[in-house]
């Protein structure tokens, strides 16, 4: 380690430095990988504080003793020591740091070097998310950060993403992490109407503005955010300017996408075949007449020109009507640079995406200014300002007949258009989704402004005061119109308008004190306070009676059917302190504490205190390890701490009434019973970990074991509804998460050809340890449960025992023991039949480069989670209804006596054979997915320099190229969030729900990146 070397350097200097005569040394510093000059490289005379910085062109000049040694250091590069040996010109090439142990890691209220950390923090760099094509960045974390599990809501654009860091720690309060952008906790809750899937306020941040993302996982890292950190903290740092000439970056991408998977439904021939089999099974061959049966059910099933030829006629692939080839384009330009006093980063970005689902489009345009200015030697001031407009043209939620994916329920015998009139076919068994697609719209427009202004004051040597005032402003307008001839909008049209204004003010003030005592005792102290106030205002109205589908705004409506306006607010007030101590560059201690007050609790229980402590030992800095050539870095660490959770309703401790309307007679109805003793939910987390580097840090890694115990759960406890209330928030119960995380980074080849790998895997075991006998359910049907001794959200329903091979009847286990079966589903015993929580998940990525070529790929995997494929209840139901069926059903239903391979029972037209809620539709949703594959080429320097460019890179990038899974639904990575915020109890419990849930896109993107 160079740290210990520098310690020897000090000795060296003390002995010889003072005796030397000085000479002038000049030179240029370049990046070894592309030969580009490096401005801003620190050039230090070893063992002194004498130094300089390379200029715009990477040149430096310094006066040193001829026998001195120069240290060249630059973030992300391995520091290089070069003895002067009397030379006057020293050109240096720096190589990228392999292990990044000297990487600067952003922690709450400050930064640390990676090797100094005693907590568990994962980092993601800008380049990992630069090419990301989804509107928000979170999905890029899955597979790149051990312990972070992401499940995309649906394949629709701009929707909230379920994020779990080390499992779920709460049942009724949110399990989403806290997001902090440039020091300011931001709004991440659903701001959309309750009538659709939750929208994602993080889609308002341009992923290409992000410099780094740090995920604070253990209590030591997160406890500085106290009451809001129990689910982990995700810190996003945006790009800032560096001293040097103005550098422009232009990046543009164009992408093409299609559904990552199609389920596959029956075509005309297969459907008629199934219909015939099901009809014969139901009515007997002698009573069966295929054609008259079809005539009775489908008025348009025959070809109008050849009505007697049943091979002709409609053969609609409704899945293809719902899914399309999507596309995206993106254009970003940024400029950054600055003088010694003032640095800036400016960016402008535009992105436009067409989802793979018909009717769904997202675009965003925005700009950012990040500015830092040193006003005096003591005072630095600056600001970050980000203004975005995003528009999301949405389709209805997954449960609505009008949502495009539900078109797959329509049989192939029904034409899209009426064969006589040529109009869209209105006589389908369920609503023809093409009708609302044409005559309805739902546009959401968001203006978002993240901004903060800060000043930082150097009061005394080592003592700094920093004050940040932040504003997160979100202004959203939703305009919806449902056409006159749509199911939901008929008979005379329905218009809906909604406005939301969310304003979060944030004030952070803190002192930082850095000092080294007696050379060997490093102290970093942070003490400060934080205040936050959030106000959210809503206004909405609905109207009916539109003259035609051309007039879609409420002004044209004859009748206002409802109007509503309301608001909600919460506040936090906090004080915090942290001490980072480092002794002899190898013994590390961190203590932190935060006291939080929240408006959400009753007067007597508002404040909570959240302390943490952690220690680390850099064993490799001990004398006895100095010469170890195998183990280049070793740091065991241990942490313990408390974090809290208060992410419940803003007024959960209150007894509340709200307004009611009985045909114009206004009144009040009770909505909650008071719970004056409600207080913080507390999570105690213990983490034991080790960071290691082997073979000169060619192999580095981290191993962590943690135990998270949550007590005083903020639980929506169930009470007899004969009281008039079904639940009351109380601090009841305990839950725990235990798990392992492994991360391994290797530099496999380190020549002109470079090959790096990363593998990470996380195991989490969630268990509800005490619930005071409560059983909490979610979903409709309510098959997701929280019960003592089980993981959150286990699936509890009748267990399917397979097909009776002789009769084709569906069988279900009659009793808990599972030794008797019944054909009557309603007699079957309910049992635990699945667990939606994964056993383990992670990622495996590789980066290759040779000359200008680079290739990288990343697999992500999830294992052991069950999914309830709810749509299967109709689409694998043996023609219980006319719904089209899946090929999975068609290839796996019982064909006759002795068929003992069949998964699904015998089809019986219009008759139930095991139809209903059971484990028949629960499937393992484990998968491995080639999430990201990138191939790039950086043009040789000598060519681009002729065009006054610094670098030019072209690339092609593929997302979700391959998926390996046995899951028969659309996509094992999605889980419908229903229409609630992902932080609500229903979404905590109801994981792994696939109800006509749209798949993720498979995207191929071509990109160009210019630096000049």
């Amino acid at each position, binding site marked *: 380690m160079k740290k210990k070397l520098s310690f020897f350097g000090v000795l060296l200097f003390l002995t010889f430095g003072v005796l030397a005569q000085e000479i002038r040394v000049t030179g240029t510093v370049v990046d070894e990988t592309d030969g580009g000059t490096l401005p801003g490289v620190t050039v230090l005379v070893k063992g002194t504080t004498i130094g300089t910085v390379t200029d715009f062109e990477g040149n430096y000049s310094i006066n040193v003793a001829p026998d001195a040694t120069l240290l060249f250091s630059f973030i992300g590069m391995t520091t290089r020591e070069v003895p002067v040996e009397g030379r006057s010109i020293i050109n240096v090439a720096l190589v990228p740091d392999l292990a990044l142990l000297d990487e600067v890691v952003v922690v709450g209220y400050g930064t640390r070097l990676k090797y100094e950390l005693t907590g568990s923090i994962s980092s993601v760099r800008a380049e990992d998310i630069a090419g990301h094509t989804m509107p928000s960045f979170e999905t890029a974390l899955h597979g790149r950060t051990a312990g972070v599990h992401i499940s995309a809501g649906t394949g629709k654009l701009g929707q909230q993403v379920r994020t779990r860091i080390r499992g779920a720690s709460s049942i009724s309060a949110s399990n989403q992490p806290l997001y902090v952008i440039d020091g300011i906790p931001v709004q991440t809750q659903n701001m959309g109407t309750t009538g659709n899937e939750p929208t994602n306020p993080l889609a308002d941040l341009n992923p290409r503005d992000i410099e780094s993302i740090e995920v604070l996982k253990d209590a030591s890292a997160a406890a500085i955010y106290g009451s809001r950190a129990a689910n982990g903290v995700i810190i996003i740092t945006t790009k800032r300017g560096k001293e040097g000439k103005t550098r422009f970056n232009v990046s543009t991408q164009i992408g093409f996408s299609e559904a990552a998977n199609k389920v596959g439904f029956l075509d005309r021939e297969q459907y008629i075949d199934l219909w015939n089999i099901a009809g014969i099974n139901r009515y007997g061959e002698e009573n069966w007449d295929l054609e008259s049966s079809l005539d009775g059910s489908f008025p348009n099933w025959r070809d109008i020109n050849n009505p007697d030829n049943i091979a002709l006629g409609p053969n609609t692939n409704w899945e293809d009507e719902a899914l399309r080839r999507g596309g995206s384009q993106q254009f970003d330009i940024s400029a950054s640079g600055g003088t010694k006093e003032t640095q800036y980063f400016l960016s402008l970005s535009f992105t436009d995406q067409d989802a793979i689902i018909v009717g769904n489009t997202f675009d965003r345009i925005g700009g950012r200014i990040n500015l830092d200015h040193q006003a005096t030697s003591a005072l630095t001031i600056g600001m970050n300002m980000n203004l975005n407009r995003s528009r999301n043209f949405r389709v209805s939620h997954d449960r609505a007949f009008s949502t495009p994916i539900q078109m797959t329920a329509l049989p192939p015998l029904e034409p899209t258009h009426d064969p006589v009139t040529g109009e869209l076919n*209105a006589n*389908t*068994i369920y*609503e023809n989704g093409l009708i609302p697609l044409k005559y309805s719209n739902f546009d959401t427009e968001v203006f978002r402004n993240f901004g903060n202004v800060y000043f930082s*004051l150097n*009061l005394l040597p080592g003592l700094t005061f920093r*004050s940040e005032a932040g504003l997160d402003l979100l202004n959203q307008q939703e305009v919806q119109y449902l056409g*006159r*001839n749509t*199911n939901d909008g*008929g*008979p005379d049209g329905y218009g809906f308008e909604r406005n939301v204004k969310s304003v979060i003010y944030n*004030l952070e003030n803190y002192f930082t004190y850095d000092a080294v005592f007696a050379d060997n005792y490093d102290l970093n102290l942070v003490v400060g306070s934080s*205040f936050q106030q959030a106000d959210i205002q809503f206004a909405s109205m609905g109207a*009916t009676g539109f003259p035609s589908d051309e007039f879609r705004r409420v002004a044209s409506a004859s009748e206002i*059917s409802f109007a509503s306006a309301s608001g*909600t*607010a*919460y*506040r936090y*007030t906090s004080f915090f302190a942290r001490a980072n101590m480092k002794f002899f560059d190898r013994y590390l201690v961190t203590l932190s504490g935060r006291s939080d007050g929240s*408006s959400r609790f009753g007067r007597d229980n508002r404040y909570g205190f959240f302390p943490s402590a952690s220690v680390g030992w850099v064993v490799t800095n001990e004398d006895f390890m100095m010469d170890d050539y195998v183990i280049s870095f070793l740091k065991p660490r241990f942490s313990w701490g408390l974090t809290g959770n208060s992410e419940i309703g*803003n*007024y959960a401790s*209150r*007894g509340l*009434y*709200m307004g*009611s*309307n*009985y*045909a*114009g*007679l*206004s*009144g*009040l*109805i*009770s909505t909650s*019973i008071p719970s004056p003793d409600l207080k913080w939910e507390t999570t105690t987390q213990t983490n034991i970990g080790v960071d290691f580097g082997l073979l000169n840090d060619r192999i580095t890694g981290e191993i962590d074991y943690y135990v998270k115990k949550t007590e005083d759960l903020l639980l929506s406890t*169930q*009470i*007899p*509804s*004969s*009281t*008039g*209330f079904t639940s*009351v928030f109380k601090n009841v119960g305990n839950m725990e998460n235990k798990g392992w995380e492994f991360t391994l980074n290797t530099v496999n080849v380190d020549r002109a050809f470079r090959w790096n790998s990363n593998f990470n895997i996380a195991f989490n075991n969630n268990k509800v340890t005490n619930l005071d006998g409560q*059983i909490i359910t979610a979903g409709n*049907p*309510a*098959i997701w449960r929280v019960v003592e001794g089980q993981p959150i959200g286990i699936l509890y329903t009748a267990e399917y025992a397979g097909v009776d091979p002789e009769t084709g009847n569906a069988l279900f286990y009659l009793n808990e023991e599972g030794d008797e079966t019944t054909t009557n589903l*309603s007699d079957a015993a*309910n049992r635990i039949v699945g667990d939606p929580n994964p056993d383990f998940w992670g990622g495996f990525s590789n980066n290759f480069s040779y000359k200008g070529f680079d290739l990288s790929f990343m697999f992500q995997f999830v294992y052991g989670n069950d999914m309830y494929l709810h749509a299967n*209840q*109709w689409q694998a139901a043996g023609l219980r*209804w006319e719904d089209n069926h899946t090929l999975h059903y068609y290839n796996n239903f019982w064909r006759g006596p002795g068929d003992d391979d069949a998964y699904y029972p015998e089809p019986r037209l219009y008759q*139930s054979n095991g139809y209903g*809620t059971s484990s028949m539709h629960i499937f393992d949703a484990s998968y491995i997915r080639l999430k990201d594959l990138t191939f790039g080429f950086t043009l040789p320097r000598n060519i681009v320099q002729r065009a006054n460019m610094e670098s030019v890179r072209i690339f092609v990038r593929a997302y979700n190229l391959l998926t390996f899974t046995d899951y028969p639904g659309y996509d094992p990575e999605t889980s419908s969030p229903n229409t609630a915020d992902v932080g609500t109890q229903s979404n905590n419990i109801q994981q792994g729900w696939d109800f006509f849930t749209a798949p993720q896109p498979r995207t191929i993107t071509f990109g160009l990146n210019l630096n000049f």
Partner: protein
Amino acid sequence: MKTNKISKYFIFILLAAFIGSCDDFLDVEPELAVSDDAVYDTHEGVLNALYGAWDRAAGPQLFAGLSVFYSDLVANSGQVRWTGTFLSYELMESKNMNPNEGIIASTWNRAYWTIDLLNNVLDNLDRVNENARAVTEGEARFLRGILYFELIRHYARPYSDGDPSNNPGVPLVLTPTAGITDEDYRPRESVANVYASIIDDLERSKALLAGFTTAGANGGRATANTAAAFLARVYMTQRNWESAAREADFVIENMGGYGALNNTPRAAFNNDTYTSEDVFMINQNATSHAGQANDGLGTFFASLDGYGRSDVHIQQNHLDMFEEGDLRGMIDTVPDAITIADINKMHYIGVGRKPNNIMSSKWGKYDANINVIRLAEVILIRAEANFRNGSTIGAAPLDDINAIRARADVAAWTDLNLDMIWEERYREMCFEGRLIEDIRRFEKDVIIPAGYTDSGTALPWNDPRMILPIPQREMDVNSNLVQNEAYL
């Protein structure tokens, strides 16, 4: 840095650091909702809670669902076919209900939610201005009485089946909920005791509301007539024919006799206000109704241009119940039926998304008032009760029946038996939620409709499969409850 400059900065720092540090900063009052018990401190507050209770009682889970739709599906022998995809309703039609189904719980929860509001109203009557006190109490008792009646007739064995003083009814809560204590984990009160409470509430309500006796009086909420009409229904289920006939007679006299019947059967339905025939309606309008997409009677029954899911299809054996020329059995064929107003007969050939099925015209407008009790029903109650009792309170049974038949344009009868009364009730009252009570009173079998594994099976009138389960959620929470027989 100079000292005075630093001190200037320090003032700035102190200002910045302590903004909002006072405790009041954390006092945030809700805007949307009223907090705490202050609601019941004033006259207006108590009335607001009463009107809130009306709003809750009107929802799709109660008088636009439970009392009409569920009753007829549970009692359906194949006169209609449920063709929708909502599993809950299919399970009702197949008599295979599941305690986990959402609507089983939502109906139960909504009823008790409303009852708690009413208990608060009744507990705080002393806050109500004296001149409004009797009416407030009368309305609250009426609503509480009829809600318990809806609960007991769906979630417990019929009064006439076995020993009502031993059969478990439903938890009987007559006081407001304060904190949650052990006492709130109530067992099921006996059927007889719940009935006693219902009759007590309704009789007192009838007396307290004696000043309101015309259709739609008291803002179209409770009147002496509504209380008496419900009492008549309650007594019928108890087979207390004499009392049922007296209560029915009270209503008919107040309403003005046969003359108050509308001129045609069709005229009684899909109205925005009370007609002369309506004894009790749930008021609805464009901003306050049971739903038009996933809930509400019209949603399931209608098959119109752009409205209705066309889920309940009329079958031939229903049509076979009607005599030639019966206005109640006719079918309209309007090729472009845009709204229910275009339809003049009691049935029609549906249009829209699932066209060409025979639909009922009774529920075709999502924001129309919902008929809960019509005079025609009360006349039929008086006829049946008198017939069974061998009495002629108010009128002879044959005259009452013939008054209903005359309005339907069918010939008068000259003699009468119980089966004829059963049939006449079916023809007049179909799809209005009365079928389950009629089956229990006339002790008719119910046949499992086509399309289920045990289709064609005959269930006796008191089969436990026609009683709703106690919601599983409630069973899980409250160990003092016992489940109904069919769901053990």
